[in-house]
């Protein structure tokens, strides 16, 4: 009966589940990065290049840390409002600003190598290979720059539906081809030399009458594992594609806007309604489904030892066994939650919380 506000009763997230922990989480190191991601649903995640790990905050602070010791190597204050989180590779670090600014710094000392303006927001982290830096823009364009000089190599354009999900998928940039998933539900392979489409595959078909029902964004990052490409789409399908012959091997109806993870022969998906499901990579059969995290706004999954982990809106990281999805450990890393993807490398899980806390975790 709210006369003033029209709050309508809130859809409540499910409470934390009690379980007997089989593993212990210990924090190797943690560092704070500027003022964090802010409240504009910025999906910031860290980026790793060799021994260094980089992170950014919404006010233009970029920090480089040694990923084993956690010692801060350098910190740079840029005068832009960062929207897209940090991308790194091959000795370079890239960030993108709200007014379309694109800045690439040198990984050693953070000095600015080159800068350009792409005239719209870039919410996805940039990707590098030996010679190009690829940015995916929210207006459906993909722009490749020469990584060292910053001159424009090519631009690919795609149609954007009238209503999409906030956030864009980061492309996978291999040596000669780039795989990019778009808000139109299409997955495209682009030739790195000229930026032309080699093949195109419709991962999900828009259905229903209202713009809301017709959203089929690919927002999660595609996953390349043993030569097979996996990609999910919102209100669409999880699809396994042979990237060389652009042929769909199998598909499962599941809606997800998060990136994927793989382990133990499974593909792990954080579904739209916050359940985590494991599918067998070869037969596509559903192995297990953990639904006790409903409405907790879970992040993309990341694999650590024998577990698969997801973070939630209160910053709890839930570790689940890769065999049957039972909870094995839990740790609260940042009470303001984790929106961005987590990175696991060499048995260490790197997490960037919304309040700007960057931590490296390990399981005992």
């Amino acid at each position: 009966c709210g006369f003033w506000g029209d709050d309508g009763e809130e859809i409540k997230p499910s409470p934390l589940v009690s379980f007997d922990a089989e593993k212990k989480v210990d924090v190797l190191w943690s560092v704070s990065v500027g003022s964090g991601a802010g409240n504009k649903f910025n999906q910031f995640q860290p980026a790793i290049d060799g021994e260094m790990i980089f992170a950014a905050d919404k006010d233009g602070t970029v920090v480089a840390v040694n990923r084993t010791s956690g010692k801060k190597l350098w910190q740079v204050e840029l005068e832009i409002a960062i929207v897209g989180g940090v991308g790194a590779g091959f000795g370079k670090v890239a960030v993108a600003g709200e007014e379309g600014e694109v800045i690439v710094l040198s990984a050693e000392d953070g000095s600015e190598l080159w800068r350009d303006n792409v005239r719209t927001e870039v919410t996805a982290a940039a990707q590098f290979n030996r010679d190009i830096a690829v940015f995916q823009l929210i207006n459906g364009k993909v722009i490749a720059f020469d990584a060292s000089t910053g001159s424009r190599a090519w631009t690919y354009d795609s149609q954007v539906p009238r209503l999409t999900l906030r956030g864009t998928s980061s492309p996978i940039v291999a040596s000669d081809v780039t795989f990019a998933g778009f808000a139109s539900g299409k997955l495209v392979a682009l030739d790195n030399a000229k930026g032309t489409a080699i093949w195109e595959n419709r991962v999900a078909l828009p259905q229903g009458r209202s713009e809301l029902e017709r959203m089929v964004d690919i927002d999660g990052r595609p996953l390349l594992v043993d030569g097979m490409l996996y990609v999910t789409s919102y209100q669409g399908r999880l699809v396994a594609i042979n990237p060389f012959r652009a042929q769909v091997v199998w598909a499962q109806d599941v809606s997800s806007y998060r990136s994927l993870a793989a382990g133990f022969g499974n593909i792990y998906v954080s579904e739209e309604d916050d359940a985590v499901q494991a599918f067998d990579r070869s037969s596509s059969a559903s192995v297990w489904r953990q639904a006790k995290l409903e409405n907790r706004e879970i992040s993309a999954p990341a694999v650590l030892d024998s577990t698969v982990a997801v973070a939630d809106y209160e910053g709890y990281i839930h570790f689940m066994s890769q065999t049957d999805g039972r909870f094995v450990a839990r740790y609260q890393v940042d009470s303001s939650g984790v929106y961005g993807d987590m990175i696991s490398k060499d048995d260490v899980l790197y997490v960037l919380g919304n309040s700007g806390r960057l931590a490296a975790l390990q399981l005992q």
Partner: protein
Amino acid sequence: NNSSFEIQDIRLEGLQRVSPGLVFRNFPITAGDQVSSAALAKATRKLFKTGYFDDVKLSRDNGVLVLKLLERPSVSLIRIEGNDVIETEMLLEGLKQGGLQEGDVFKRATLESIKQDLVRVYASQGRYGASVTTDVETLPGNRVALNIDVAEGQIATIQHINIVGNTVYTDEELKELFSLKLPHFWSFYKKDDRYARQKLSGDLEKLRSYYLDSGYANFSIDSTQVSITPDKKNIFITVNVTEGEKHTIRAVDIAGEMVVPENQLMETVRVEEGQTFSRKLIVESQDALATTIGNAGYMFANISPVPEVHDDNTVTVKFFLDPGKRTYVRRINISGNTRTADDVIRQHLKQMESAVASNEMIEQSKVRLEKTGYFKSVNVETTSVPGSDDLVDVSYVVEEQQSGSFSASLGFSQNSGIILGFNLQQDNFLGTGKKVGVGISNSDTLTEYSYSYVDPYYTVDGVSRGFSLYYRERDFDEDNTSAFSTDEIGGGVNFGYPIDDYQRLNFGLNLEQVSINTNATETPAEINQYIADEGNDYFNMILRSTWTDNHLNRGFFPTKGYSHTASLELGLPGSDLSYYKASFNTKYYRPLDDNRNWVLSLRGRFGYGGELGGNEYPFYKHFFAGGLKTVRGFEQNSLGPRDSKNDPFGGDVLITGGAEFIFPTPFVKDQSGWRTLLFVDAGNVFDTQCSSASIAGNCEEGIKLDELRYSAGFGLSWLTPIGPLSFAIAAPLNDKSGDETEVFQFALGQTF
């Protein structure tokens, strides 16, 4: 075997609610037919298509065809819980459009469509996060009840509007133009943080015009992205623009068939050389050209401005003229006037039938109709006559309203017996367009028998003629002014005629016999003094003349324009009392937004009276101030000099005025019947020469501006079915001791 067999009779089994008649009407086989199994199958399919049955089985009982029917349940009740923002009727209406309402046949497929229809109703209100669960409860008698449980979820508000590529203007400056706003203090009331596609396209149009109107000829909106967070609570809008350079006008030119001399056309064009490029001026010039040509009879002319952008940041603007054919009005239809006679409306129209069509005249006629005050709304539409390319019909659709007031009262008091009060003031009496006023009352303060009649269209050009007769015995004491009473008997004739579209002159001659009665104790010395000098009854010949210049856009609740009225009342020489009483009344309305909901208005009323012959200025012709009409917050007529009994005596000089800030009435859909405003009033009356009998302190001679009284407050007017009702809540700002203030005042039959 498709051998056919003869049917003696047909028996129906399993029927509960469907009527046998309906079954037979849809089963094209009757007793006595020779029928094959193919025909039977076709008939069964036809029966099945009616949708009333889940299953139809046929069997034979030696010659009797038996139809075993399993009726589909019908939905007899739909219960919806969990909805509090959208009422159940609205949701049922949404289902009805989806083809499901109580009493319909229930099909399993409808369950799925229910979910989508309801979610769509919520999505249309920006509540993207709503979810719906349904379950079916069977009731006896093959009926079902549908229980629908709704989780309305949060409303999606706009979290982030980002304009990329703007250097000339800042984001904040441009977002000011937008109707879509980030959540702010007023959001719960104005609801402007709710995303709606049409609103966005409207805002983008405003953005484009803002740039194009200030010189940026090749400004373009490259793309717009609207995205929503997965929890469907926040909307993100990104607008990517390319500003381009600021351009100036190099040259202006008109090409095409000049049906109106070119120099006359060039005058109406607002775009000049050297001026900063502005699309607004180009569009205004285009309209001006269309109107000028339209007035010459070319209603279907089309003018296309072609700006040609040069790379030295200048633009040549060429107007291409295609006048089309001279257009004529075939018929003018008037509708909606179920009470007002046709010619009462038609006489206001300047556009003639079977004559050259003119936009200006058609539009002016609409304004003239609005000025009459007879109508709540007047809409005009010009449609071309099918089968011709140069004939149009013009249709005026009016919505009538009560103009004038009507009140009747019946009472009884011991000393003066039956008190009868009947007052009728109608501007459009019985829809004949005549102004009729009848006043009958015999209360102890007022005995009145008055009749006034004005025919505004005595001649077809709008010369008005009217006359009035009145017998009035008024006891002023009750009217909280000086204690005396007047008996008046008189009558008169008046004429008025327009001297142009907006100005009008009125003349009236009244013959009047007035006698003043006093009573020994109550009547103040000033009046006794006056009677001593001038006697107490007078026969006067009064000439009233007024000049009005009315540019207001509407009769009731004007929102634009101004009006001046100057009037002079002369007690002609040869009457017992010769005097002059002049007054000037001016109103000015200035809309603050394009659809004129927020209006600033100023008004002023000034009066000056004096004697002409040897006699003193009659005290009963004094000006009074205070009350709803002049200075709100002070009692009726209570301002200004007092007589020796300390009753208000009025004065021969009146100065009042005020400013009003009119704003749309909250929580009301149809604004045309309401007016709410904040006001500041000022005013007082003065006396240039006090009566010799007045006591010091009650009447200072001369106009003292520091004696002006001020008040401020809130006012509301509402057009009720029996006439306008107005009230004001006012706080006097500088009332002095002895002033009679009144915080709440109301009146029937008068609007602000």
